[in-house]
């Protein structure tokens, strides 16, 4: 997640950054005024260029996300008119830029710690285990590149065998491989004592 950016925002506590992200997203969706949304977008962009230029570069590199926003805006323009589309574009554009700033200036370790702390009230209410929530978020971030590598390996295997790429033949090895990894990860988490409430299981396999 974080590459050292040299930005002053790296020194801001992650909880403050996440709270700011939440507040900005609420504010952006409270107003439908183009003037206010345009001003907000402009201000965020200028602040990012001044204090975290790296985030702007990363935001521009996230073209699938920007393309999705553009597609949704086009659809909105077709259905509800240009004004609604512009509102949506400004909201999602600003929000994605602020989210990128938080992402590039916060390490995953800090992120997990913050989410875990934020989830402690849920644990007190008996709804969820705070460390499990933090760990789940860390695992999702950790295994995104792995799933991509697995996908590329399956694609290569198809090409090597001269098989056409079909969703049905791609999905099965991806799901099987991912489930096998999930089993190994669960074992590793237990073995490392990361989850304090895990219990031993009877689980022999092809060993």
């Amino acid at each position, binding site marked *: 997640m974080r590459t050292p950016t040299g930005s002053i925002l790296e020194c801001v506590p992650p909880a403050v950054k996440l709270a700011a992200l939440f507040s900005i997203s609420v504010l952006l969706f409270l107003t439908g005024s183009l003037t206010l949304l345009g001003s907000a977008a402009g201000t965020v962009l200028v602040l990012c260029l001044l204090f975290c230029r790296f985030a702007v570069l990363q935001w521009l590199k996230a073209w699938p996300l920007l393309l999705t926003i553009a597609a949704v805006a086009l659809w909105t323009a077709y259905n509800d008119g240009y004004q609604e589309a512009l509102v949506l574009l400004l909201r999602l554009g600003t929000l994605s830029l602020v989210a990128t700033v938080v992402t590039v200036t916060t390490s995953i370790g800090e992120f997990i710690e913050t989410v875990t702390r934020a989830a402690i009230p849920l644990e007190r209410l008996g709804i969820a285990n705070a460390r499990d929530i933090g760990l789940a978020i860390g695992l999702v971030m950790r295994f995104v590149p792995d799933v991509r590598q697995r996908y590329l390996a399956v694609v290569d295997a198809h090409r090597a065998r001269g098989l056409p790429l079909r969703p049905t033949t791609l999905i099965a090895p991806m799901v099987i491989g991912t489930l096998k990894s999930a089993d190994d990860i669960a074992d590793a988490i237990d073995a490392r004592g*990361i989850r304090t409430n895990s219990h*031993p299981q009877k689980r*022999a*396999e092809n*060993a």
Partner: protein
Amino acid sequence: MQVVFNDVSVTYAGRVVLQPFSLRLTERRIGIIGLNGSGKSTFSKMINGLVLPDTGTVTTNGFDARQQAHEVRARVGYVFQHPANQIVLPLIKDDMALGLKRLRLTRQEEERAVSDVAARLGISHLLERRAHELSGGEVQLAALASVLVGAPEIVIMDEPTNQLDLRNRNMVSRTIRSLPEDIIVITHDLELLSGFERVLLFHEGRIVEDGPAEVVIARYQELVG
């Protein structure tokens, strides 16, 4: 180490994975060999309570693996056959620190523990790297580091040199030899076991040979043909 198996057996889905046996492990360097599916990994996973026996008890350094699983796991580190899957967080330093959370150390203490272990294994340069960017040997050492940072008394390594090129294999092999902790290695790499005090040979769910490395390896080669 003091690992005691008392009349232990394991079955899984109607298949006997390990026939009943009793055994005491006390040596500092123990190797486990045998064909695929002979029961090696199941045997080793019982030592830290990842697999529970159907009959009998396993005690590790005085703690019952069934009743005192947390105490056992705090004392036994396990490096899995596919070490990439055991690195839970993207950044190596974050992953190493994750295993320390249960100790409730300060951030400075955590950072010191992580950097000490990384320096000891010669992987300080990997701390800021991401798991998916590392070579096979580096992943193996990073997984070992994430285990060692918890200061285990026993380290179990499942096929630590599997799929490594010669350079990485030698690097991992040297590291294993230099570890002060008690070591149990499951391996098909018989050279890795030279100098080990004791080697167990598994075959079809039984320990068919138990003794010094040279004797057991010779018996294994004879068995395989």
